[in-house]
Structure formats: structure tokens, C-alpha cells
């Protein structure tokens, strides 16, 4: 491992992720972002829920919490309220973040508490063997929809935008440098930042959907993910199988939760300590 970012890891590789699992690429992109930002790891907290994606906190050497399924954002909110001076990273999966944790997700977006969330989207419940998630695309197969999903799926970025998140971005494991840039930009934004990292699960998703080979999953992601500026110029027909990557929403003048709380305390206490 490169010495520049080796310091952000416990020395316990290999990780549990399967061969070619996109989550390792997300972890590497994140480490580059932290290195670029020059963060002191003792001033950082990394919090995750449950899932293959959430196992990431087992490898990161910061203050870490591997919490309960869907609840990473609630623990993170508690940490940030108690210690607003710390930098908080949250890692979640599409299942963890938008299914069982969906309600926490929308309220964290609306509340605008300063933290950086990386949602590792592999379109499936990877860890438990491949049940469909709210982000499994229409028609794709999972153990719980062996004939193809008839659910319309969530677009996490649109969901976050609608719920009022002040920084929403998307990137993917093919555009790994761009993913690092999005994490850096999200970190530098004061408020709730969410970055969807389009990842891959060759085992629980790919095997059921014609792409058991991680190289094919990578090629598909490369095809599908298009820079927002180029995406916006496409016709509706061309847009059908593409998704935009880049910063999708940024609002700089919304009140941030911990700052508002501090002001509230001062106001209620009349400025007295």
C-alpha cells in the first residue's frame, strides 16, 4: 500500500470482500481523499451500519464505529452533536442507507448536520446473499425477485435532493479519481454531504444478472456513468441507460445543525456560561 495513505489503515488486510468487489476501490478512493485533505486521523470518526460496505470501518484506522443496520447516521448525528470539532465520515450501503435506514437518511438530509456520507451502491444486499434493495434496478434479479424486480427503484441522489441535502454528488468505481474529488468536495462543504459511490457486487448481484465477472461489471459502470455536463446534453432516449456523475446539488447558505444548536444554547442561556 502507498505510504501516503497507509497511515489511515489498520494493518489487517486482506479484507473480507470478494475478488473484484467494488467496495475495495471505494475504500481506496476515500483514502486518497483523506490524504489529499491532509486530515489528522485522531480528529476523524468513521461510522458505518451493517453490510459488506459497512465492514469498511474494520479496516480504517480512525475512531470507528460499526453500528447497527441502517443506523449509522443516527450514531453519527450523536457523535457530531457531542463533538462538533471532529470530522465525521459515514459509510453505508444501498440497503443499509435507503431500506432499513431510509427514514434516518431523509431526516439527516433535511437537518443539514455537517458530515460526509459515502453511500456504496451495489444495487443489492450483498452480505446476506443477494436480496433486492430499494436501489435494485427494475427488471434485475435477486434472490427475492428471481424473475426480475417489478419495483421502481430509488434514485438516491434525487431522494437526497428532495429531502434537502445541501451537497449531493455521485461518482463510481471506474472514475476512481473523480470519486476521490467528489469526497474531497463533499468534505469541504459545511453541512450534510452525500456522495453516492456506484460500486459493484459480482457475487450476489452479478452472478444473477449476467455479470459474474468483475471486469464486465466495471465495463458496464464505465458505459453507464457520464459526467453531468455531457449527460445534460443527451437526448431522453440516450439518457435511458446512463446516469450523471458529478456534483448534483450544492446549497451553501442553509443553516448547519451543530452551529444552530450552539447559537440556541447561547440564546437560551443568555450568553452566560
Amino acid at each position, binding site marked *: 500500500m*502507498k505510504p501516503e495513505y497507509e497511515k489511515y489503515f489498520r494493518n489487517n*488486510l486482506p479484507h473480507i470482500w470478494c*475478488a473484484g468487489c467494488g467496495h*475495495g476501490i471505494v475504500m*481506496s478512493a476515500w483514502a486518497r481523499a483523506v490524504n489529499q485533505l491532509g486530515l489528522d486521523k485522531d480528529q476523524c470518526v468513521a461510522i458505518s451500519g451493517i453490510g459488506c460496505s459497512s465492514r469498511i470501518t474494520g479496516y480504517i484506522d480512525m475512531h470507528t464505529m460499526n453500528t447497527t443496520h441502517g443506523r449509522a447516521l443516527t450514531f453519527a448525528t450523536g457523535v457530531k452533536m457531542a463533538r462538533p470539532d471532529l470530522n465525521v465520515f459515514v459509510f453505508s450501503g444501498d440497503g443499509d442507507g435507503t431500506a432499513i435506514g431510509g427514514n434516518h437518511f431523509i431526516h439527516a438530509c433535511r437537518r443539514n448536520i455537517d458530515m460526509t456520507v459515502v453511500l456504496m451502491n451495489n444495487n443489492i444486499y450483498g452480505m446476506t446473499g443477494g436480496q433486492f434493495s430499494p436501489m435494485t434496478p427494475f427488471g434485475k434479479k435477486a434472490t427475492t425477485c428471481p424473475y426480475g424486480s417489478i419495483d421502481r427503484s430509488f434514485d438516491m441522489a434525487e431522494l437526497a435532493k428532495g429531502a434537502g441535502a445541501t451537497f449531493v454528488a455521485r461518482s463510481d468505481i471506474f472514475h476512481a*479519481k473523480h470519486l476521490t474529488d467528489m469526497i474531497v468536495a463533499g468534505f469541504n462543504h459545511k453541512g450534510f454531504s452525500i456522495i453516492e459511490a456506484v460500486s459493484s457486487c459480482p457475487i450476489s448481484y452479478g452472478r444473477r444478472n449476467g455479470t459474474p465477472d468483475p*471486469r464486465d461489471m*466495471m465495463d458496464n459502470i464505465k458505459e453507464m456513468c457520464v459526467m453531468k455536463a455531457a449527460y445534460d446534453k443527451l437526448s431522453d432516449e440516450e439518457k435511458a441507460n446512463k446516469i450523471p456523475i458529478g456534483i448534483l446539488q450544492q446549497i451553501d447558505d442553509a443553516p448547519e445543525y451543530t452551529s444552530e444548536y450552539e447559537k440556541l444554547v447561547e440564546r437560551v442561556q443568555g450568553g452566560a456560561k
Partner: protein
Amino acid sequence: MAKKSYDVQVVSKLCKACGLCVHLCPKNVFDRAKDGRAVPARPEDCIGCGTCELHCPDFCVETKEKEGE
């Protein structure tokens, strides 16, 4: 200006033989061993683009510019 040259290393015991580096390298630097693990067979062709490092999920490929050449 002299052409830059690079060291390309794969930490074999961490390699899970996913083939991503082999697939994505624009200069075909890697071969695969019998067990599928990546072997940097033609490091002299490496242009230092970093693609292999960026896309290895297992942190086991590293390229470094050779000094003093």
C-alpha cells in the same frame, strides 16, 4: 528528455486474481499466473498512468517512478 521508467509490483499474497488491473492497463503490462493472479510481466511498457493502482480493490498493485534514469 529520457523516457520515464517505472517499477510495477504486485503483492502476490494479497492479490485475489480479480483481473481488473490486467483488464484496465492501457499498456498490457500484466500477465496472469496459472492461479489468475496478476504478474507485472512487462514493466518496461508502463507509462505510470496509475490505472492499476486506482482500480485494484485489494491494495496490492503499486507503481513507482524509477529514479536517476
